[in-house]
């Protein structure tokens, strides 16, 4: 679109250049023409008619204007369509890309800062929670410890009581056995003492008595 706009201007320039010399040209046309005519003399005198007016630094004419116009227009048109739009597009894209990158970077930094704040809060919360959990754990452990301690104490007390009871029973049994054995021993001792004291007649009487008892029991 841009090309078309100034292309119009240049086409107008071309038309003007072809139609009539511009005032700018008119102003220096005179010295050019003057020089051409003055230097023409010696050249034509030497027979170099094609080179007429060549020695003037203002050599040339409207043909140069036409050529320059055409060549310049071609350059402006070709570069204006093939090269410069590419550069303008790249410049524009680069500008946008840099702007986008900077904006993205800013946004990401802000996001990162927000996230950092969030994480810090989370970590703080987690620390508080952890402390609470540890405290609670400690309390629970204390309770459990007490309970276990109590239970152990109770159990041990019971065991002691049972042991005492068993000891008591064993003691009683032993005492009883001691009595029994002592009685038997006493009887045995008494029997031995009695056997030595009895005489034959007493034996006979006792045997007879026993036989009588057996007879009586048979009956």
């Amino acid at each position: 679109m841009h090309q078309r706009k100034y292309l119009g201007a240049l086409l107008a320039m071309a038309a003007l250049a072809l139609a009539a010399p511009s005032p700018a040209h008119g102003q220096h046309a005179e010295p050019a023409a003057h020089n051409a005519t003055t230097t023409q003399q010696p050249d034509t005198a030497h027979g170099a008619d094609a080179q007429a007016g060549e020695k003037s630094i203002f050599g040339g004419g409207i043909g140069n204007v036409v050529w320059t116009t055409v060549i310049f227009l071609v350059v402006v048109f070709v570069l204006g369509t093939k090269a410069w739009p590419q550069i303008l597009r790249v410049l524009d894209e680069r500008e946008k890309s840099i702007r986008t990158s900077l904006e993205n970077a800013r946004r990401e930094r802000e996001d990162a800062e927000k996230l950092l704040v969030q994480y810090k809060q989370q970590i703080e919360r987690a620390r508080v929670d952890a402390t609470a959990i540890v405290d609670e754990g400690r309390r629970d452990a204390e309770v459990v410890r007490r309970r276990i301690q109590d239970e152990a104490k109770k159990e041990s007390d019971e065991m002691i009581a049972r042991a005492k009871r068993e000891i008591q029973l064993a003691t009683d049994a032993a005492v009883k056995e001691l009595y029994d054995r002592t009685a038997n021993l006493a009887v045995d001792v008494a029997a031995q003492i009695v056997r030595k004291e009895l005489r034959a007649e007493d034996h006979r009487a006792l045997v007879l008595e026993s036989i009588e008892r057996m007879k009586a029991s048979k009956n």
Partner: protein
Amino acid sequence: MLGLLLGSGADPLDHVIQHTTLDLNPGGGLWSFPVLSNHIVMQVLAALLLIIVIPIAVRQRAGKDEVGRLVPRGFGNAIEGICVALRNQIFQPNLGKYTDLFSPYLWSVFFFILVSNALGLIPLGDWFSFVPGHLVGGTSTGNIYVTGTLAVATLLMVVINGLRFHGGAYVAHFFMGPPYLAWFIAILEIAGLGFKTMALCVRLCANMLAGHMILAVLGCIAFNFLEILVAFLHAFIFTTLTAVFIGQAVNIHHDHHEEHGHEPQPAGAHH
């Protein structure tokens, strides 16, 4: 070497004047119509170089991906570097919102003049001395008709775009100052346009002529370097002044408000 080659001619003028081989109206002065001369050949050569090299150069990219497409490579760097520098440093401050509209034209002007100037520094005339009629070599921008045409192109760009964007206001802005002086000032202003155009034309032509004549006379390497500088400098000056003149024409309202505040007079003073 270059200087020696350039200095080898008998007459220093031979290096700078136009050698016409075919003229439709020989000896016609202004109305002579050269159709084949060394300057025309050099212009065609410059145009071909530009048309072939620049589109290829600007397509040289570092890669095909999203970032690589935006990065120039090789010679494309040079072209883009010059274009960007001109656009940012010269066109933008002068043309403002019209920068991208006129940048392509101004870049074309710059490179056309630059290549024409630079081709004149290469002693092609001596390398191709076997070509009959001095058809190769010379500086086309040392020809007053060539620079005159380019200057007229600038003048037309100025006037046509001034009228296109501001119409009557563009004409009215010549008539400034008190009413009894307005016509006088307008005449001066309009004449000034012509003088500015003529100055553009003469400045470029005279510098190229003088520089290349000095090279031809002195044949000194140091002057070659100076001339390389001058080749760039005058392409730059011509482009800069074109941008300035177009900017003055298309930004009249902007300038007007800046310079005169809310003055109801439609005239704007820029000169």
